[in-house]
């Protein structure tokens, strides 16, 4: 495919710079998210993956650079324009972020009640359809505290798709889940993507799972994109850092040791 017949990406990030106080999180990153594809952003914990999703959703503003979503410059949007855009974005938070005071049913119904004037009977049908899709129709009367972590994420997913968004952002969907749940969530992500054509952005550091379902992967480290490409190409990457990450090697460009003074001097010394 040449550059010209490629469709315009849904999300287009250019020269992104961002810092928390003195700490640089992004230092000139360029990222494209193609429509209808599953794109994964990979990187070690604390590199700013969640931060990136928050910037795409307009909850944080970059210091400089541009974040275009569906042709709109997100950091420049006014509050009501931003809210209008967010109705077309779903986000599955790392913790699920379910409303602890509401039942599962009411959690999924929440965006519908807020943003539509549908009659109660239709809301009920829509919620049951979404819950059926994640296999939790029978759990509708439970409270979030009664769910396992994996079930909470599935409910969060049902809620994220309640308004039929054009894209969904998944924040570490596999982290801390048992293998069966991981399989279920992978299947759900793929299903939503294939059958509904929803653009998916996954943020993760789970190499195997991500390689299996992603169309395209970005590897980020220290605020920059280290390498990107389809999973198969990335395996051939010439970057030592990418190889260390993909093969889970304990030592390499990312040192095993946190920066420390000389070991011998440290043992013999008495201070510090």
């Amino acid at each position: 495919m040449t550059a010209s017949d490629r469709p315009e990406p849904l999300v287009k990030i250019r020269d992104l710079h961002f810092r928390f106080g003195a700490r640089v999180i992004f230092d000139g990153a360029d990222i494209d998210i193609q429509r209808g594809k599953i794109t994964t952003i990979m990187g070690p914990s604390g590199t700013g993956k969640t931060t990136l999703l928050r910037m795409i959703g307009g909850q944080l503003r970059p210091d400089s650079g541009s974040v275009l979503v569906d042709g709109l410059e997100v950091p420049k949007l006014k509050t009501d324009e931003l809210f209008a855009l967010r109705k077309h974005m779903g986000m599955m938070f790392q913790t699920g972020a379910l409303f602890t005071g509401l039942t599962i049913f009411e959690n999924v119904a929440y965006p519908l009640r807020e943003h539509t004037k549908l009659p109660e009977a239709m809301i009920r049908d829509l919620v049951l359809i979404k819950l059926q899709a994640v296999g939790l129709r029978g759990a509708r009367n439970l409270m979030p505290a009664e769910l396992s972590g994996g079930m909470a994420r599935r409910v969060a997913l049902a809620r994220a798709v309640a308004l039929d968004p054009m894209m969904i952002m998944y924040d570490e969907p596999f982290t801390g889940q048992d293998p069966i749940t991981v399989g279920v969530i992978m299947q759900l992500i793929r299903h939503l993507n294939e059958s509904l054509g929803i653009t998916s952005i996954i943020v993760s550091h789970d190499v195997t799972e991500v390689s299996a379902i992603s169309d395209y992967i970005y590897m980020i480290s220290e605020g920059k994109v280290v390498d990107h490409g389809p999973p198969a190409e990335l395996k051939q990457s010439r970057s030592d850092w990418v190889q260390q990450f993909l093969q889970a090697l304990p030592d390499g460009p990312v040192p095993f040791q946190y920066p420390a003074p000389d070991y011998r001097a440290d043992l013999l010394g008495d201070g510090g």
Partner: protein
Amino acid sequence: MDWLQSLGRTGLILFERLGRGHLFLLRVFGGMSDTVLRPSLLIAQMYSIGVLSFTIIAISGLNVGMVLGLQMYNTLVDFGAEDSLGQVVALSLVRELGPVVAALLFAGRAGSALTAEIGLMKATEQLSGMEMMAVDPIKRVVAPRFLAGMLSMPLLAAIFSAVGILGGFFVGVGLLGVDSGAFWSQMQANVDLREDIVNGVIKSFVFGFVATWIAVYEGYDTVPTTEGVSRSTTRTVVHSAFAILALDFVLTALMFGGI
């Protein structure tokens, strides 16, 4: 010079927080219209803030009123003025103890709960989640709680005073033998609607405003960790108590004069 530096730094932090608190208040006022349009949000909060504080307010009011009746009787009886007991008990409660003690209890019972609830919603990303669903948490979460707190406080203070007067009556008339007719008629003759009751209501309204403001702000501004939420909750109670007592002096000076 170190102390001067740290004084300056503390001052700056204080003023920055005050500034952010006021900006936050403006946003809450901006979000208030939605609450008015959806009374169900307000009613649910009036219940959890107001009604659930009722028991502690009523029990405390009764105790304070009984103690007041006992103490005042022992002083008044030396002057043969025990017939004024009703007036003294009622004025102490309506002007001072009702608004102040009820507000302190309110800060401890409802204020801390508000901070913890909003803080936990922040720490568990529920507020973020709401924002990402294109719902403004200031409108949906903060504004209804703020309005409910502000409206509940004068009602709770009134209940506190009313129950307190009954407590004073029980001790004074029931146990110590003050004349029942004198108790009520002295009270009726000497408690003024505008001077005493309206001023008391204004006080409790101001205390409710400040205590709820502190509570929702501390919750919304919390550091989103377990530790952060517990610190904010403590701060709500401590800061509310200070604010209530300091404002009480200012308001008393303005209302009942002498300064």
